[in-house]
């Protein structure tokens, strides 16, 4: 074999290799695309199905009358919309100060405090681990805890208060962790600049650090709101399921998610379950869009790129 033929052969080999590589490339491309499309199709299918089924029963009357109760599942869903709103507000009011406060402590104070004492260091480590573990605990466990502690032991009964306390416990880990991350991304140079002007540590935190971390903190709170709207089991055992509008925080109530569950499992009105589910899904989609917009606005205001 001459050198030339050899090189021709190796060239052909290279070409074949290249072709095979190209084929692999194309195959990989197709698989990835199919996976992406399948995932999207699944979402659209579910959302589309629920919406199309749901809209067959949704009208003004459905939205503005309360459920009639009983196995027939007659009536609308008005009280469940309002109850969901009540529960969300009450839960956030309880969870936000606790969660953000804990995050501020962990990021701004814990290190300093644990330097002085081994005991506090241990305590802080335990708190961190606790938050991690809580984040992975199933919601029904929080429900059982809330049922035992708030409903029975503290005699709060099935009520908005019991439910929002349990709900706050459920979303605390989320709020703490997202707030912690947000606080950590605030540049150290901001803190130094503030302290070098003679501002106290607390003034620095409340006037520079927290405002800068706000978009991240808001994201955590909104994730919590989504969770409260969507959860069922935890509120089944703490909020009860009364379809009347709660008049005080000591009354029982029924969120949209609870209503879907009870319609679907205990009545013949499967169509109304679909209607309620459609409103639930729309609420969550709107919430997500609003959060996106809000956090972009906040970020733009903070970075000055409006």
């Amino acid at each position: 074999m001459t050198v030339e033929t050899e090189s021709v052969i190796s060239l052909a080999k290279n070409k074949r290799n290249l072709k095979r590589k190209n084929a692999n490339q194309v195959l990989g491309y197709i698989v990835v695309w199919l996976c992406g499309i399948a995932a999207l199709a699944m979402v659209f299918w579910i959302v589309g199905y629920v919406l199309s089924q749901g809209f067959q029963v949704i009208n003004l009357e459905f939205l503005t009358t309360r459920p009639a109760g009983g196995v027939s599942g007659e009536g609308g869903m008005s009280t469940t919309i309002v109850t969901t709103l009540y529960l969300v507000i009450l839960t956030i009011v309880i969870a936000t100060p606790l969660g953000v406060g804990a995050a501020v402590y962990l990021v701004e104070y814990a290190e300093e405090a644990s330097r002085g004492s081994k005991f506090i260091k241990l305590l802080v480590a335990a708190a961190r681990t606790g938050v991690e573990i809580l984040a992975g605990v199933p919601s029904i466990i929080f429900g059982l805890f809330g049922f035992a502690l708030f409903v029975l032991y503290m005699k709060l009964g099935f009520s908005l208060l019991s439910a929002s306390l349990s709900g706050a416990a459920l979303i605390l880990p989320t709020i703490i962790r997202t707030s912690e991350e947000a606080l950590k991304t605030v540049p150290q140079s901001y803190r130094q600049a503030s302290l070098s002007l003679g501002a106290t540590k607390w003034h620095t935190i409340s006037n520079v650090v927290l405002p800068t971390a706000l978009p991240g903190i808001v994201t955590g709170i909104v994730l919590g709101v989504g969770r409260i709207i969507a959860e069922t089991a935890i509120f089944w055992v703490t909020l009860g399921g009364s379809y009347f509008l709660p008049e005080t925080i000591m009354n029982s109530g029924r969120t949209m998610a609870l209503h879907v569950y009870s319609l679907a499992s205990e009545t013949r009105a499967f169509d109304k379950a679909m209607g309620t589910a459609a409103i639930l899904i729309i609420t969550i989609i709107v919430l997500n869009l609003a959060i996106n917009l809000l956090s972009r606005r906040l970020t733009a205001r903070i970075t000055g790129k409006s």
Partner: protein
Amino acid sequence: MSSENNRLKFKIENLEVFYDDFRALKGISLDIPENVVTSIIGPSGCGKSTFLRAFNRMNDLIPNVSTRGSVIKGSEDIRKTDIVDLRKSVGMIFQRPNPFPKSIFDNVAYGPRAHGQKSMAALEEIVEQSLTHAALWDEVKDTLNKSALALSGGQQQRLCIARALAVSPDVLLMDEPASALDPIATLRIEDLIQELKKELTIIIVTHNMQQAARASDYTAFFNMDEDRAGYLVEWGQTSKVFTFPEKKLTEDYISGRFG
């Protein structure tokens, strides 16, 4: 360098700073005259910034730092001064411009507000005065409500100077204030330093030998020993240190033979 001045702003006696067991500064004794610019030069890692942070006790914020010796401001040991009063009277400018993510106005008003100034009229006056002193007023007077982060790097650094001036300090510490800026912005900062020294004592850490020669009246040269502890090689009037240094080491460093 004409600023002949016998009054002292600071008297540093046998200052030592430790990070845990590591001695970062050893046996520093020197005087800082009032209303002049003193530059601190020396190779990287010789403790220049640590030294600067001793003047407003910013070292106290770093875990496990301990300080020995004394820094006397006027007639008082700064360790006995209330930390808020100390930091009000000793302002600091950092290496990278670090304006808060707030409006230009709110940045300058931050210090006075932190110290309880609530009157809007008073704040407006302080903001205008401080920005004028920092040679920034003409550029931003119509955009005081815009975010400070939209300013250029040089403008941001002058804003930080205005922010420091707003609490009426009598000393300004500058930690390589122009190292992140372009040459034009650097010159503006240096011009500004010349203006500010009429009313303020300025201590500036710099890597830039020309800057030290151009902008300062006194120069202190630091180096580090074999244990990496920073020590003072010599200090004096800049004209003297740069033309007739007492130590061979100073001459080698200034002429660029090491560092």
